[in-house]
């Protein structure tokens, strides 16, 4: 069939249009925000939770909060904060982000220290997931504040008492979970995963 250039162009455009009609166009995962504004947003004090605040979420099993553990899977399997879900930092963008960031809960990242969690926060905020936070100091701070703290003074104020109560209960939950045999631990985590999927609804 002999076609002139105009006809060829028309055919190409129609074919491209057909492809477009069947592509899922969302544009949701595009990174945006000027670097300086993004940095300000990520460094804003309101983007951080202290280990004590996280401990409180853990013992009250707060369902408006989701902890995300950014460490590699082997480390996560050895120990983790109760209720946390493992999304290794390296796989962060490969996983379906919508499933763990797009929900209507506050998402708190943590890793061993601050660095990876802060990177994850920048990425999440840049992609438009604004309800994201970081546990300041990471697991190191969690160990220092929650696991290893002890009271050495003479008198204890009511406020300090409440704080220590929270820490000790969180410590107990943490130890209980992490001293379970691996098979039980895996089952506990699986139950958390399933709960998450149930909440998502829709077609899975």
């Amino acid at each position: 069939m002999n076609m002139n250039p105009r006809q060829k162009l028309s055919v190409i455009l129609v074919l491209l249009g057909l492809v477009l009609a069947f592509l899922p166009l969302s544009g949701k995962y595009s990174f945006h925000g000027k670097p300086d504004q993004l940095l300000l947003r990520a460094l804003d004090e309101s983007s951080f939770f202290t280990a004590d605040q996280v401990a409180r979420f853990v013992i009250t099993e707060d369902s408006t909060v989701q902890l995300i553990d950014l460490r590699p899977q082997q480390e996560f399997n050895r120990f983790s904060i109760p209720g946390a879900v493992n999304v290794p930092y390296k796989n962060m963008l490969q996983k379906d982000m919508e499933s763990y960031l797009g929900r209507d809960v506050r998402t708190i990242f943590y890793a061993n220290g601050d660095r990876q969690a802060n990177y994850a926060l920048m990425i999440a905020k840049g992609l438009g997931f604004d309800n994201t936070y970081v546990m300041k100091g990471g697991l190191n701070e969690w160990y220092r504040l929650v696991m290893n703290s002890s009271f050495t003074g003479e008198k204890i104020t009511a406020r300090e008492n409440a704080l220590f109560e929270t820490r000790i209960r969180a410590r107990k939950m943490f130890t209980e979970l992490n001293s379970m045999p691996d098979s039980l631990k895996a089952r506990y985590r699986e139950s958390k995963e399933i709960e998450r999927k149930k909440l998502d609804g829709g077609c899975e």
Partner: protein
Amino acid sequence: MGPFTSAAGFPVWLDLLIAIIIGIGFGFSLEQAGFSSSRKLAGMFYGYDTTVLKVFFTAAIVALVGSQFLSYFGLLNLNLVFVNEYYVTSAIVGGVIMGLGFIMGGFCPGTGVCAMSIGKIDALFYVLGGLTGAFLFAETYPLIRPFAEDAYRGPVKVNEVLGLSPGVFTLLLIVAAVAMFWVAEIAEKKFARPEITDKI
């Protein structure tokens, strides 16, 4: 990633420089497509030359297809791309004024400047007239304002109003454009005016 200007926070001078470079490219393409000839532009109205329809529609659908593919590959965030706001009344009245000016003057604002730059005297007066109109509009704006801002609909997109996905709407637009090109070519044969088109 894109649009670069808002994603990377370009300084104003760089934004303006990019605008000038794109503007030169646009003007050059217009001239090369023959749009600096008012005979060619008026041909759209009388049906003997439909280049205007073909060029502008092709440009629009190529841009549409390109930007949506860039968006699909995550290179362009279409949510950040400016969408013109829709004022129903002023769009209708402005369209009529623009159309009348187009057929009487033989140029649209862009092609008028284009024709002026290659030294056409009629285009020079056309641009002067346009600038005078813009000046009068600006000076009388307080009087016109309630009318100009009437029936505001915001930055709406056609596909959202129709409830279609951007891809499906693009396909429909392409099919419509190809059909129009076909009709336009028939019209060109039917209303042929060789005594005019030979001189373009």
